[in-house]
């Protein structure tokens, strides 16, 4: 059905144009990146190619990502179930902690995990204290990768599923309560239908995150047996300088990811819904209640302990020497500025895409507008870095001068998949429920946004800004080839300290970054909700 014939939706050609422009723009950037690398590859003599066993890598990466997905969804369902039923002081703080999982820098989580579960970690020291024997578990290898991924992605899954459970209408719960459903019946009859629609999209998102995971896999992988395609691409660019090989590998990865993105976008979109959760008053009793507490405490231990260890390791003597340095404040200023700019850009892009998607009912157009937003999840960052570098140079710009702009763009694109997934569902819901009314009243697009949409989506917009801000804050990203000494971000400063034997400084910076991330993640959405409430 052509959009003009759809009487349920107001005609919004500008929105469609804007959304299409963003989608085409992103697709063009990705295409230009690949093109510029292929052009550069043509200038290089064909060097020796190190053999890359693509099927083997695909198999290993898929096994790892598949296991991560299954485990994260299972953990996410259990944790969401427990959090939905339990009432306790500080519940919203705990929920916020899980929500922040996804933006915590991967390397920080990996080192936190090590100081709890490593050979010299807390768990092992406790075991020595209790039994005299160190803990015989190794955190390295597939197990370590899965543990780190499940901590990050399981918490994300829990937060998203919790939002679905918390949104179950009170009437439905009352009926269930009066029928005296057992905890199991309640889960099967009331909870499961509320969350089952979200699971495919969520699974796709987690699969993509695990499929392209990089720092965790390298650090905890234990060696070349556990590698992702992303690692092989990194090696092709860096050591072998095999640009054709890198492009080929990157295209394989993009193809796999695109298939997953397209499959997932045909299904229901995943609304991250990371705002405050309401909860409900009907708690379970007996064994189920006990089980819920155990699930929650286990999850808290698994997730909070590594982060706590980052804080404890960081807040030592080195903290004062770090804070006393001018370079630290310079890096903090740069990071905050970049994070603010890329959050603003991500919000604008996501609003454009979400509005355009909601303005049409044609599935193909909706997919076409939405799918390019996922580009950054699929295109390896080393390929993006190289491509951006070559592009900037081919425009005759000094890479050092272009670095801040490239970082802002790259960080905005990094957050875009989550931003679109957060903003698209509410916009869709508004055009479903009020599209006909808006059309019949002849409200302009601008008024529609300011009076109808913005007040309703402002809390989600706050989440988008917080997400993008935190992603940008922790990103090491694409500037490895651009760098000058004048341009330093906090993560870059952390890595530089590590590279100069200054591990204590690095630990202090990691802790400060974590505090900043958590703070931004708690405060920014509240700020935006207040904006929305202040409106009549």
């Amino acid at each position, binding site marked *: 059905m052509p959009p003009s014939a759809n009487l349920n939706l107001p005609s919004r050609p500008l929105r469609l144009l804007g959304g299409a422009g963003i989608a085409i723009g992103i697709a063009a950037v990705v295409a230009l990146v690949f093109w510029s690398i292929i052009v550069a590859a043509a200038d290089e003599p064909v060097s020796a190619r190190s053999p890359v066993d693509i099927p083997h890598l695909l198999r290993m990466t898929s096994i790892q990502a598949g296991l991560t997905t299954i485990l994260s969804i299972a953990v996410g369902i259990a944790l969401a179930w427990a959090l939905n039923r339990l009432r306790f002081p500080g519940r919203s703080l705990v929920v916020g902690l899980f929500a922040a999982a996804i933006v915590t820098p991967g390397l920080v989580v990996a080192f936190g995990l090590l100081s709890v579960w490593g050979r010299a970690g807390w768990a092992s020291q406790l075991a020595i204290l209790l039994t005299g024997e160190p803990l015989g578990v190794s955190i390295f290898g597939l197990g370590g990768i899965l543990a780190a991924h499940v901590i990050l992605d399981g918490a994300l899954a829990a937060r998203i599923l919790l939002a679905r459970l918390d949104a179950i209408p009170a009437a439905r719960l009352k009926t269930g309560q009066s029928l005296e459903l057992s905890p199991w019946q309640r889960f099967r009859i009331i909870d499961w239908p509320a969350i089952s629609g979200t699971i495919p999209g969520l699974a796709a998102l987690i699969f993509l995150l695990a499929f392209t995971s990089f720092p965790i896999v390298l650090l905890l*992988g234990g060696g070349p047996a556990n590698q992702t395609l992303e690692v092989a691409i990194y090696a092709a660019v860096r050591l*072998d300088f095999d640009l054709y090989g890198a492009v080929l590998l990157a295209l394989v990865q993009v193809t796999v990811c695109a298939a997953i993105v397209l499959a997932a976008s045909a299904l229901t979109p995943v609304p991250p819904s990371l705002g405050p959760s309401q909860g409900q008053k009907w708690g379970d009793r007996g064994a189920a209640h006990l089980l819920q507490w155990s699930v929650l405490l286990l999850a808290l231990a698994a997730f909070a302990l590594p982060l706590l260890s980052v804080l404890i390791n960081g807040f030592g003597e080195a903290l004062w020497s770090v804070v006393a340095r001018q370079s630290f404040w310079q890096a903090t200023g740069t990071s905050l500025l970049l994070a603010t700019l890329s959050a603003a850009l991500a919000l604008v892009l996501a609003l454009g895409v979400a509005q355009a998607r909601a303005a049409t009912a044609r599935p193909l157009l909706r997919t076409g507008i939405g799918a390019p937003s996922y580009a950054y999840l699929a295109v390896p960052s080393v390929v993006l870095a190289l491509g951006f570098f070559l592009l900037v140079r081919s425009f005759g710009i000094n890479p050092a001068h272009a670095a801040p702009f490239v970082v802002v763009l790259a960080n905005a694109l990094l957050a875009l998949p989550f931003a679109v997934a957060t903003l698209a569902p509410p916009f869709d819901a508004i055009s479903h429920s009020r599209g006909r009314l808006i059309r019949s009243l002849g409200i302009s697009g601008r008024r529609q946004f300011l009076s109808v949409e913005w007040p309703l989506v402002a809390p989600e917009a706050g989440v988008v800004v917080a997400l993008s801000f935190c992603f940008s804050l922790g990103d090491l990203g694409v500037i490895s080839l651009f760098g000058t000494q004048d341009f330093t971000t906090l993560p870059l400063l952390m890595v530089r300290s590590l*590279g100069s034997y200054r591990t204590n400084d690095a630990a202090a910076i990691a802790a400060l970054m974590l505090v900043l991330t958590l703070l931004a993640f708690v405060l920014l959405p509240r700020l935006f909700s207040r904006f929305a409430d202040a409106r009549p």
Partner: protein
Amino acid sequence: MVNLSRLALAVGLVAAALPAAAEEVPMLRVFTYDSFATEWGPGPALKAGFEEDCDCIVEFTTADDAISTLRRVQLEGETTEADLVVGLDTAIAGEARATGLFAPHGLELDHLDLPYPWTDPLFVPFDYGYFAYVYNTEELPDPPASFEELIALPDDFKIVIQDPRSSTPGLGHVLWIEAAYGDRSSEIWEGLAPHVLTVTRGWSEAYNLFLSGEADMVLSYTTSPAYHAIAEDDDRYAAASFEEGHVAQIEVAGILASSDKQALARDFLAYLTSVEAQKIIPTTNWMYPVIDLEDELPAAFAELPKPETVLSIDEEAITANSRDWAAAALAALR
């Protein structure tokens, strides 16, 4: 917000001021790796030292590490703005030479004190060290004295190494085993496999894992213990001397043929090998200086044991085979 806008202004001003300054005073642009130019590295002191006499401005442009530095030069080719590359090493010098982008340095380097005599017409050495496993003497009073002794230890004796595809020490480790064992290398790698805790992307992740107690030894340099002794007043760390001998990593600098400041670049290289500049190197880059500093070498360096046997592989052999050797090493670990 005031600070942010002030920062934005400052960034803008710096960007605007750079080209203007370049016209008045010649600007020497140096490509180097990141840790060389950080506030703790030798970069700032070398810049200040050279600028005193050169009537020029030294600007560092950085990439992650030595390999990325070479990659960036290769990508930019003759259109590069850089005049010099500082921080390649003997393992990638052959590849750098083959690009044809470097010009002869034309310096007399007879005064150098290196593991072997230096005759390279393109590259000038500025520091060196030997690859070695570093350990904590309190935790490990009796370290292995050869690869074979290391292999014979129980499997729970762990080492951390770096990926030869992304890290210079990682590649140096491959060359070390190749130089010591040749055809038997794959046997050594297979023997090492159960001891390898993990293979990291770069030196810093590996060293951090070692310091946090995850592994008994880490692949680093014989000079690493000097950092702990001097900067942290901690003399628990030592490098294990291996009977097979050790491979040296010599870090080098070269002038780009495309530079229009050949004479200035040559002056910088001459300065880099002067006593004044070499005194900066040990306590900033934590490597040996390339000239004999005699009493000026910090005691912690002078006390470090130097390997009895220095192994080396010809540059042509490295350039021709290093990929295959790295692939074979990784295959053995898989």
